[in-house]
């Protein structure tokens, strides 16, 4: 019988390595500009982390994670925008004290749903609560009716499309296609300085590690094994007395909440939020980050998101027109050659040597590393 321990010795080592890389190696070796780019990559790691549980474990492929990332980001941006739109700063507008894009759209008073975003506490809660609530509503509507697999993926993709159209169409309330720009201070603290960006990077990386620990504890619990069991044999789980829909709703909400936190971190570090991060393309890209890194491994997904984005930046600087082809090729390679991504390759070729060096037993690590799904990366 295996131990009940939440962290095995190997888990502790893996988390420690990740903490050192994210909190020491990366900030210690990069200039502020590059570090800020990595900060952006870290925010995508949140989405990939959520997808590990939702897609890798439970087999629910969501092609609309950009929506939740965006909602978290917009909630944060609304607070920052209101702070940047003080009467002082906006006295040249026809209605001072409201965000500039509202003024441009002949809106003369702050819409009611904007008002609570004057409060930082409310905004921080909303960053998690708004994406979670939307996921809850969609989850209820879909999973209780047993919509799953490809149909669910298509519906989430439609959601991403709808959300983009809504944001662009309602530009008086949302800033439209430009998004929310010119964000300046967080509770009086200027977020545009190099020092602030360094702090924000460290906070993002710290919160990511905390989120990864939460995700790890979920996977280690019986709930984590039920998710995998559902992916395999949904009916058997149902006829073992579990309400399958409730578990799917839970994991979908978890993925949405984590994505929302990532979105808020994005807004804080990059200084804007726009519909270009919400739509179908970014949503699918986020799935690719997770697939390349390995959708059944927390570490794989996190390192994957960073590596793919790092590669993208390198490519875009030299050969921008080739990037999309490179990403397409990468995705095809993952689907055809290594369905469990980098983490799958690691497990197959390196894990046993690492175990030997660390003196850990493969059995002990097995329970943590969710079993590898057969193949077929895209849709279960």
């Amino acid at each position, binding site marked *: *019988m*295996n131990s*009940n321990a939440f962290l095995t010795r190997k888990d502790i080592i893996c988390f420690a390595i990740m903490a050192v890389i994210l909190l020491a190696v990366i900030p210690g070796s990069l200039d502020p500009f590059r570090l800020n780019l990595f900060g952006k990559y870290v925010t995508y790691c949140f989405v990939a982390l959520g997808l590990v549980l939702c897609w890798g474990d439970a087999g629910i492929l969501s092609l609309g994670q950009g929506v939740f990332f965006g909602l978290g980001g917009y909630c944060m941006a609304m607070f920052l925008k209101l702070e940047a739109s003080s009467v002082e700063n906006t006295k040249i507008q026809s209605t001072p004290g409201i965000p500039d894009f509202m003024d441009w759209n002949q809106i003369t008073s702050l819409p009611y749903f904007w008002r609570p975003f004057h409060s930082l506490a409310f905004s921080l809660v909303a960053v998690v609560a708004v994406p979670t609530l939307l996921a809850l509503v969609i989850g209820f509507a879909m999973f209780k009716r047993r919509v799953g697999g490809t149909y669910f993926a298509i519906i989430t993709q439609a959601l991403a499309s709808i959300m983009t159209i809504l944001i662009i169409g309602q530009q008086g309330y949302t800033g439209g296609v430009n998004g929310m720009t010119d964000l300046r201070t967080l509770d009086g603290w200027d977020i545009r300085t190099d020092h602030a960006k360094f702090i924000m990077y460290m906070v993002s990386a710290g919160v990511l590690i905390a989120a990864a620990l939460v995700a790890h504890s*979920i996977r280690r*619990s*019986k*709930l984590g*094994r*039920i998710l*995998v*069991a559902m*992916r*395999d*044999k949904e*009916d*058997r*789980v*149902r*006829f*073992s*007395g*579990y*309400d*399958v829909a*409730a*578990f799917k709703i*839970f994991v979908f909400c978890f993925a949405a909440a984590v994505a929302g936190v990532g979105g808020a971190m994005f807004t804080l570090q990059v200084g804007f939020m726009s519909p270009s991060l919400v739509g179908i393309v970014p949503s699918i890209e986020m799935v690719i980050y997770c697939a390349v890194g390995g959708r059944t491994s927390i570490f794989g997904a996190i390192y994957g998101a960073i590596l793919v984005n790092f590669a993208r930046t390198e490519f875009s600087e030299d050969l921008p027109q080739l990037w999309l082809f490179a990403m397409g090729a990468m995705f095809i390679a993952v689907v055809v050659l290594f369905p469990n991504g980098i983490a799958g390759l690691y497990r197959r070729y390196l894990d046993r040597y690492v175990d030997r060096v660390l003196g850990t037993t493969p*059995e002990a690590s097995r329970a943590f590393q*969710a*079993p*590898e*799904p057969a193949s077929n990366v895209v849709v279960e």
Partner: protein
Amino acid sequence: MSTTVTDFLLAVEGLGVSFDGFKAVDDLSFYVDPNEIRVIIGPNGAGKTTVLDLICGRTKATGGSIKFRGTELTIMKEHEIVRAGVGRKFQNPSIYEDLTVLENLEISFPRGRSVFGALNFRRDAEVRDRIEEVARMVFLHDLLLLQAEYLSHGQKQWLEIGMLLIQDPALLMLDEPVAGMSVSERKKTAELLHTIIQDRSVLVIEHDMGFVADIAHKVTVLHQGKVISEGSMAHVQADRRVVEVYLGH
């Protein structure tokens, strides 16, 4: 009908279901006593599996009633029916291939079935002892840490039986439990079924007549969604209609 008070564990009355006008089960009634072992036989397409699907809620009835300990099952969700005490084994071994034998049994342990219950579930001594005990019964106690996909077909059947057993259902439904097994596996399974059917009612679908004669208290013969004969094995074997549609060939 709804006011019928009975000592039956399971009372199926006037049950019917039709798929696009085709009546798979039609005005079906039968009663199962506590601790009774009932075998359902009948030719292919008689509606045997559909009856089990109806009882466990996988298929919704278009008419009639299924009462389990006096509770109407036709309006309940699948997981509620399981929690009420009805366990179901599928025709093909239905286990979680990606999990170990231990984890397969643990998921079936009847505790922590809500989302937060599952989050807080601890593999304590009670759980471990029960898993050990059941694994021993289904001949898998040496394979607890093996991933289930590496089990043989027969072992997978046993594992699924073990998963039901750990739920300790009052009514156990088995769909062809010895199908696809080797002779020695079949013999072991028959022994296993003899042990696990103690102290509970069992509803079995089976084609193997030797096996049926061996375990059945009572046999129900289905044909085209209707009961054509019911009684002891000897009784149905002597029934002319049964011989005609099923046993004769």
